[in-house]
């Protein structure tokens, strides 16, 4: 299901995270950028008295759309076609890549301009096009930085979030042959503008994603900050929009809710500077040919899983990334996916039928910061636990998994925890057995095997010689009624 050309590897989250944690530059950049966006987001969200009602409404709209996805997609297709567009259905990444390449080749195009689309990153479109002699040019400023830097996106609203201004300048100097370029935002913008303008005017085919599809009138909606998207949507002769099947909204008026919550959550703006909504083709105005490629690529099975379906409500605002304490430490590359952060931790493994990204559901302390900010109320911690359950179930089907230390330990613990006698016995055994690990300070400073991860940076409190239940039993046998016990406890202090 994954694109053969993917530049994402299948290494585990802890492994990738370890490498990124060692990169202090990336960590500084990520921390700074997420702090800035979060502060803006909190400000503009805080000024809305009905924010919680908007979240509720957004959640209900998206949930309803998913419940009736089959009907709304067909309705979208009908209305888009009636307005002069062409709708294609792609089962997986390979099929979507084939369709898009075919459309480009039909127009003998050797180059295309692109608006930021993480869905194209998901299917590895750029690599597929390059391998077939078509050069894609990213026009979103952050995507351009990533592309020219031969890098990968680390965030789906701000893909170059891990780069700072000086690093951007170096990339532009090198790739645009501008050795004198300064590092002021104006300098960098001017360079990008000159570089891109020429392409807008020359290249006749554009590829985009979409934020929303509207079933009732066949409209497609893209919101952005720079206006580069608007150029891609209006200047070329041919526009191809690649869209995940989950992105449909039933009615035009549903935009009223999500166009309030999306910009506030994503970039901390009250409204996006550019809101493009179009239907089909119009004589003398915009592209002459318009295609929508509807992509499944692992979404249908998510829809079928009642517990996990809410994953597809996502409107890709990335607020959960900016709020996530794990993402703050590692940045996006540790997730090895176009979709990093908390939403990535639940979406990526599901898109790959749990065969890739199996460590991602565990890449969270379940602190709940993601759920708290999500404008469509996706209970990410709940889905993470559901997916952990699937990982465990898969593991328990193999002999190695059954005999693995986690499974054996958890089975034993479950046996102990379902009986007070066994639990008390285990406490007493622990009090004895820990002796070899406890240092002079009364703490455990080194543990073996998988537990060594804890003691790399942390000491562990040793078990006290008397558990609470033993203290209580002693108090009762001393005839400690309530008041007596209170006195005893005071004396002990």
């Amino acid at each position, binding site marked *: 299901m994954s694109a053969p050309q993917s530049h994402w590897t299948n290494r585990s989250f802890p492994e990738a995270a370890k490498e990124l944690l060692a990169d202090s530059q990336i960590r500084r950049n990520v921390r700074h950028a997420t702090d800035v966006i979060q502060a803006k987001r909190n400000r503009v969200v805080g000024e809305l008295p009905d924010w919680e009602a908007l979240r509720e409404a957004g959640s209900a709209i998206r949930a309803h759309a998913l419940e009736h996805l089959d009907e709304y997609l067909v309705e979208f297709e009908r209305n888009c076609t009636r307005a002069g567009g062409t709708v294609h259905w792609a089962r997986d990444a390979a099929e979507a890549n084939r369709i898009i390449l075919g459309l480009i080749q039909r127009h003998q195009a050797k180059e295309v301009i692109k608006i930021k689309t993480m869905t194209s990153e998901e299917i590895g479109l750029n690599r597929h096009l390059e391998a077939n002699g078509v050069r894609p040019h990213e026009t979103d400023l952050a995507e351009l930085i990533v592309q020219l830097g031969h890098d990968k996106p680390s965030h789906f609203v701000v893909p170059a979030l891990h780069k700072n201004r000086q690093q951007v300048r170096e990339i532009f100097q090198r790739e645009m042959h501008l050795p004198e370029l300064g590092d002021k935002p104006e300098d960098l913008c001017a360079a990008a503008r000159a570089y891109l303008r020429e392409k807008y005017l020359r290249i006749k085919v554009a590829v985009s994603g979409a934020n929303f599809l509207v079933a009732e009138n066949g409209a497609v909606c893209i919101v952005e900050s720079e206006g580069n998207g608007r150029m891609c949507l209006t200047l070329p002769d041919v526009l191809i929009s690649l869209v995940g099947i989950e992105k449909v909204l039933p009615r035009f008026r549903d935009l009223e809710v999500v166009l309030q919550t999306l910009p506030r959550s994503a970039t901390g703006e009250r409204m996006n500077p550019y809101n493009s909504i179009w239907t089909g083709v119009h004589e003398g105005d915009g592209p002459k040919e318009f295609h929508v490629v509807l992509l499944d690529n692992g979404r249908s099975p998510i829809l079928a899983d009642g517990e996990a379906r809410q994953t597809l409500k996502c409107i890709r605002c990335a607020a959960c990334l900016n709020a996530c*304490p794990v993402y703050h*430490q590692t940045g996006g590359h540790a997730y090895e996916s176009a979709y990093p952060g908390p939403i990535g931790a639940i979406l990526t493994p599901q898109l790959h039928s749990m065969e890739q990204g199996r460590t991602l559901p565990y890449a969270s302390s379940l602190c*709940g910061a993601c*759920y708290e900010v999500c404008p469509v109320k996706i209970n990410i911690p709940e889905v993470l636990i559901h997916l952990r359950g699937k990982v465990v179930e898969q593991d328990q089907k193999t002999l190695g998994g059954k005999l693995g230390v986690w499974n054996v330990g958890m089975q034993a613990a479950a046996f102990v*925890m379902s009986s007070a006698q066994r639990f008390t016995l285990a406490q007493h055994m622990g009090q004895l057995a820990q002796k070899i690990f406890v240092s002079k300070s009364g703490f455990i400073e080194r543990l073996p095997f998988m537990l060594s991860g804890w003691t790399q940076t942390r000491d562990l409190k040793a078990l006290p010689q008397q558990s609470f239940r033993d203290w209580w*039993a002693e108090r009762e046998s001393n005839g400690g009624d309530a008041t007596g016990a209170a006195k005893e406890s005071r004396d002990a202090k």
Partner: protein
Amino acid sequence: MRISLFITCYNDTLFPETGKSVVRVLERLGHTVEFRKEQTCCGQMHWNTGYLHEAVPIIRHFVGVYRDAETVVAPSSSCVSMMRDHYLKAAEMAGDAKLAADVEALLPRVYEFTELLVKRLGVEDVGATFPHKVTLHTSCHSQRSLHLGDIPVRLLNKVRGLELLSIENPQECCGFGGTFSIKNADVSSAMLAEKVRTVLNTGAEVCTAVDNSCLMHIYGSLHRQRTLVRTAHIAEILASTGGQA
């Protein structure tokens, strides 16, 4: 009121002082505390690690122990949030309608310790004295699941002699997350380093919280770094009478 103490498995084993403090505060306020010996664990570790089916017998055991209790208190927001957020789901997953009904009947009577004091018993001043500089770590579950809001602060503000110092990013996770701290030890440690830096920046002598799990994690680093800052569960502060009983 007759209050049944669910001490929680890790407080029972690792932090008996917290349990004694809960008993002390509640008895001082004139309530009767009972301890049901059959109690073990809430099942959170299994559930959160993905051992969903294994958690069910533990949950069933908990519900069986407390089914007829008048009021249950636990000095742990994370265990109470396990119950409120997941017990019903677990019962449904197990296809056990009886368990689901028992859960629904029992949970409204289960409280986190500070929540019991302020929301159920209507007390803010528990008569404590603790003449120290203290900072409060706002644990994730207390905030985002139980929505305790300023309840712990209101209690601490009434403690004689206590100076409460504010901390930067109080809402950010300390990186414990149960088995997360082992499965993702490096990320967890990086999160902890940040939390400990903010704790040390406050200049407090004591860092408190409504959860010993976070405090055990935070103290693990404070101790490793040989700082003199210590941690204490909020029950221990509220039980304290400054040495003069």
